């Protein structure tokens, strides 16, 4: 793959949610939702973020767009005019301007569209705030967008309830595309859809990416969707990035034991490929009270003494292959069998 230009380069992103006591709202601790995570996304590339519920993948996506205020970190974003800005340092006006270039697609197409607004207003809303188009121009643009995502442009006056789940997700995509962004965070964008409809939306996202040269950060818990759509994949566990590499490397030669276990746990739609599974004992730890050392060590089958004591460094072991595991150098782990 040729070196593409960086669109987003975030370093040391942290988001802690404070836990307060009910009395006097005294600060008694923190939930480490995202803890010191580095991510980068290049132009026209899809970065998949995978992990189990509560691992902080959604919080990471939101922090990067500054939908929620991050606790710490740097997030360098290259705008369409070529200027690099630190999203976390922008004031409100600058942020609004920058948001034209970074958008979000949400998980639940039933909850993310206002039932009292018609489609033209839903899709046109970002344009009313972020452009100086007139009303008629906005309507024209909305028609274009509907056509782009495969919906009938004549359905402008309809309310969301008249559309099926897949169609609603297309409306959500059209809304995200309204301001011609360069970077879109797709937060579980296809998880709520039926399999046959899911394929339609995945194809649409891929087609739009090559047509408009979009960069995605695609957040999902579904490994096969992640594998299908991503160029690079980041695996998160309890607020930490444990491994990040090209999709090929993650799925063929994982370096972190958690990635290996995750791949192994995924049911494969072929009864002839039954294999021994690595079953993880127990559950994901509470991010308010994580275990000592490596967060994964209580469930890891390769753990040794150092794992319980020291936190492993997140380092680039091979070119473009980052991992946070003490024993990454010595272990040979299994990826996904492919025929």
């Amino acid at each position, binding site marked *: 793959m040729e070196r593409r230009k960086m669109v987003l380069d975030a370093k040391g992103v942290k988001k802690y949610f404070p836990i307060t006591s009910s009395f006097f709202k005294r600060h008694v601790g923190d939930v480490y939702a995202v803890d010191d995570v580095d991510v980068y996304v290049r132009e026209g590339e899809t970065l998949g973020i995978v992990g189990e519920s509560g691992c902080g993948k959604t919080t990471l996506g939101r922090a990067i767009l500054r939908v929620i205020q991050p606790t710490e970190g740097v997030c360098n974003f290259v705008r369409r005019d070529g200027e690099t800005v630190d999203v976390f340092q922008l004031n409100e006006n600058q942020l609004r301007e920058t948001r034209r270039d970074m958008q979000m697609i949400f998980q639940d197409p039933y909850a993310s569209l206002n039932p009292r607004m018609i489609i033209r207003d839903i899709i046109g809303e970002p344009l009313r705030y972020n452009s100086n188009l007139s009303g008629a121009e906005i309507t024209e643009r909305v028609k274009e967008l509907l056509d782009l995502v495969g919906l009938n442009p004549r359905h402008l006056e309809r309310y969301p309830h008249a559309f099926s789940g897949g169609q609603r997700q297309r409306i959500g995509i059209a809304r995200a595309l309204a301001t011609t962004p360069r970077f879109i965070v797709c937060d579980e964008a296809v998880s709520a859809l039926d399999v046959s409809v899911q*394929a339609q939306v995945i194809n649409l996202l891929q087609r739009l990416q090559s047509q408009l040269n979009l960069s995605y950060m695609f957040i999902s818990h579904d490994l096969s969707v992640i594998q299908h759509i991503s160029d690079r994949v980041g695996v998160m566990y309890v607020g930490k990035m444990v491994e990040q590499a090209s999709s090929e490397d993650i799925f063929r030669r994982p370096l972190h034991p958690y990635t290996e276990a995750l791949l192994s746990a995924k049911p494969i739609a072929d009864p002839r490929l039954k294999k021994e599974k690595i079953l993880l004992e127990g559950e994901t730890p509470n991010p308010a009270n994580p275990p000592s050392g490596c967060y994964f060590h209580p469930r890891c089958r390769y753990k040794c003494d150092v794992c319980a004591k020291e936190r492993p460094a997140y380092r680039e072991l091979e070119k473009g292959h980052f991992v946070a595991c003490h024993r990454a150098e010595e272990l040979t782990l299994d990826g996904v069998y492919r025929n």
Partner: protein
Amino acid sequence: MAETRKNDVLLEVKDLKVHFQMNEGLLKAVDGVDLTVREGRTLGIVGESGCGKSVTNQALIGIVPHPGVVTGQILLHKKRGVALEKPIDIVKLPRNGKEIRSIRGGDIGMIFQEPMKAFSPVHTIANQLCEGIMLHVEPNKKKAWDIALHALEQVGVNNPRQRMNEYPHQLSGGMRQRAMIAMALSCNPAILIADEPTTALDVTMQAQVLKLMNDLKREFNSAVIFITHDLGVIAEMSDDVAVMYLGRVVEYTDVDTLFHNPKHPYTIALLQSIPSVTRKAKSELEVIEGTVPYPMNMKPGCGFYSRCKKRVDGLCNVQDVPLVDIGNGHKVRCMLDEARRP
């Protein structure tokens, strides 16, 4: 699927229909389903939302909501492990009668999708487990408590003694689902219905629960009806599979045939539309155009007609398509099948 072994059949569903008369018209949620449940085997039912898989299972234990009308036959061949001279037809039993209540939970256990919703939030785990046990197995409260504790141990709930006195909200998702399985198993049902039991769980949790269910099935030689929309889970859990679409079974065969020699265009399209970790990335996925039609006031003909790539006008949309055995118990509901081609 050997048709000769008749005596291991536990439950037979024949031409099951569940219709809802709504103000807008007649909604055929389930429209002529035939299934056979055998001892020690898992029957997987797979389909997209709205295909009638959950309503089918509600009919099996007689809990179809109002104003659903159930017709057809659901024949229970064994009760408490004893073969019956004359099978019980669950459809004919009164909804709140003594007999259906002894079958529900007793002979047929049920695991629901969302354990948070299925459990009562104001009763302890012990309370809820013991209720069923005292009704079906052991009227003595103390002994029932021991059975419940044993069931929790069996499904791998850690610290079961403490869990017994806790409320559902104090348990994590995976633990709740285990408690749910313990509840269904504590009455030793011959048939276990699992309605999307792992959909709300993470992959690593899902792997644990699936393994547990397979181990328990082997241990008790019970029959399992496993409902899911996830073809990966079907491949791992089932022996036989019924693919449902719009309230009908469109293909019914053993799991290997389903994945390696599917016949119905819907099954084929469904298998091609899932992104798989064993397939080439970034390729265009095969899609099924359109969405599942709403099963109200349906025209006669094949239900998949509007989305099928191979449809033939004047053949597929004329009359309802029967489910035909094309050999070795492989049943397909398609006019374009070779055996039926004019």
